[in-house]
């Protein structure tokens, strides 16, 4: 107890001693590390990766842990609010970098094609089945409606001026559209604009799935009803196989992509309506990330479809060849999605 009964003088000596605060010494000792981390983080945030030396890149995770432990210690020993605030925000900035999206575009593409895309597609097979059923139903409905009353064709397929594809059109007129030599100029422009339009529709189809999946259902049915009407029209003139070829060369890819977009939207909607034992937020996030991978693929498929429609269909003028190309590509997609089972080594989704 003697120590507490020191004279007033000895007490003030102790105060001076203590004035060189231990927490300040702690800060002074570690400040160079903090400043170095801050400099590296600032440069990385500015995106000047090339200006950062390898030593700094290697030092980042180490410094991050050093500064994080400084923060833990400071919280227990220091009452310097400015230092604590600085350390908190510095650790957070470094954390964003250490645990940020550190994949480069190339490595992400590698994993995407190397299994993640096909895995994501497989994981929504139930929704794909629903989407397929709807598309088939839409086609049948479109056909049946027109077969019952040809006036339906005009309702479903408002013909633009000069479009020869109307009920009662002659086989020659229809053939001219499918095999004609007209309009071969500017094919690549046609392909690009097709892609841009279709990708927009597909993204919309997916985004609307957020509303519990109802809008993509309607979109899928509505679009395939047109298909059914078109098929019926050509069947009337005995040209069914030709229109199938004309549509298949790009349609196998394009309709598949639209099917996937609708299925991805349904997947998100379904996960939110029936989250199972997870919270709605968790279920939506998990489904959304899976669906996003599918959608990235959909955009790529639509690029292919646009090129096939704009170039391939116009250059290949024979039904058999069109069918072969269309279904070979479909077989490729199916094999890639359902037979290709490599599990990616690492994933940044974890």
């Amino acid at each position, binding site marked *: 107890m003697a120590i507490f009964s020191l004279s*007033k003088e000895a*007490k*003030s000596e102790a*105060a001076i001693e203590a*004035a*060189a*605060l231990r*927490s*300040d010494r702690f800060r002074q000792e570690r400040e160079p590390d903090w*400043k170095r981390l*801050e400099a590296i983080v600032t440069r990385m*945030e500015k*995106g000047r990766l090339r200006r950062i030396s390898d030593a700094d890149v290697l030092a980042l995770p180490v410094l991050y*842990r050093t500064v*994080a432990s400084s923060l833990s210690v400071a919280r227990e*020993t220091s*009452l*310097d*609010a*400015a*230092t604590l*605030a*600085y350390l*908190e*925000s*510095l*650790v*957070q*900035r470094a954390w*964003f970098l250490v*645990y*940020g*999206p550190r994949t480069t575009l190339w490595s*992400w593409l590698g994993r995407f094609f190397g299994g993640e895309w096909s895995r994501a597609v497989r994981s929504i097979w139930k929704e794909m089945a629903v989407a397929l059923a709807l598309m088939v139903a839409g086609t049948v409905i479109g056909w049946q409606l027109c077969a019952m009353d040809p006036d339906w064709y005009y309702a479903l397929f408002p013909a633009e001026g000069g479009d020869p594809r109307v009920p009662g059109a002659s086989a020659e007129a229809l053939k001219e559209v499918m095999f004609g030599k007209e309009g071969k*100029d*500017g094919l*690549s*422009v046609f392909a*690009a604009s097709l*892609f*841009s339009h279709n*990708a*927009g529709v597909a*993204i*919309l189809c997916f*985004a*609307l799935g*957020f509303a519990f999946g109802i809008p993509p259902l309607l979109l899928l049915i509505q679009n395939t009803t047109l298909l059914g009407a078109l098929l019926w029209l050509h069947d009337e003139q005995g040209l069914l196989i030709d229109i199938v070829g004309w549509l298949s060369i790009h349609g196998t890819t394009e309709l598949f992509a639209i099917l996937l977009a609708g299925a991805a939207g349904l997947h998100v909607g379904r996960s939110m309506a029936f989250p199972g034992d997870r919270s709605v*937020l*968790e279920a*939506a*996030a998990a489904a*959304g*990330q899976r*669906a*996003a991978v599918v*959608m990235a693929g959909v955009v790529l498929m639509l690029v292919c479809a646009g090129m096939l429609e704009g170039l391939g269909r116009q250059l290949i003028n024979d039904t058999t060849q069109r069918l072969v190309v269309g279904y070979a590509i479909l077989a490729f997609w199916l094999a890639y999605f359902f037979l290709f089972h490599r599990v990616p080594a690492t994933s*940044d*989704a*974890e």
Partner: protein
Amino acid sequence: MSTAQPKRSDRRRTLVTPEGIALPLVLASRGTRFGALLIDLVIIVLAVILITAAAIYSGVGLLGMAGKEFDKLEGSVKYSLEFLVILYIAVMFLFRHGYFLFFELGARGATPGKRATGIRVAARGGGRLSTEMVLARNLLRDVELILPIAAIFSVLDGGGVTAWIALAWLAVFALFPFFNHDRLRAGDLVAGTWVVEAPKSKLEVALSTGETAASGTSRATGASYRFGEEELAIYGEYELQTLERVLRENRSEALVAVHEAICRKIGWNPGTGDERAFLEAYYTQLRARLESGMRMGQRKADKHA
């Protein structure tokens, strides 16, 4: 300040890193996010206008070089024109869908608009922000932004009941951040992300290492400030932080007021003219006392504790 405080604290969240360190996080306010979006939209619109102008200019230039009507073009000029149109379509598509993706995948997790307003995208719940998340949150922008705007125009156009219904339905998406506690927009919900204030850090100088603070002796007057145990014992950590803030803000009226309050409390006779030195010395010695208490496992939250 006291009025802004509760609003801000409503936006506070805690993030726990894999190392087990809890970090405070502040969600971005809706106003800030709207501002960021406006900046980005202005950038996009300006870029689109510039690119369109450049495309038209070079297209006209090509035609001028050929010196012919468009229909009679052939050969290389025609292919160059075609290429130009394709490039234009591709760039437009990339701008519409790729702008946000590109920037949010960068190290700062923020578009130029978000950077300017000091916010960024982060994974909800403290995980890694993945490419999939950024993709997902940006795929929904059409429904949240472009469709509602289109709906507004169709209502203004006299679209009737259907247009109003469509607008009401789409407004649910556009106004989604107003319907949930975490200010998530629909894209955030689906992606598992949220938008937070980007941490900014600047290390302030230590107040307790200055000459006056460390020695307790005022350079101006030579007065030596030493406080005894009972004079320091009356305050806790909360008062220490208040004192630190007053010292950093360094407004003379506040210094005088605080100086007077402390002197009254500890029974000193408040002089004038040397308030800052007094307060620095008091701050340092109070901190020393409280910190040594901390080391012994005794914390004093405030003067009532």
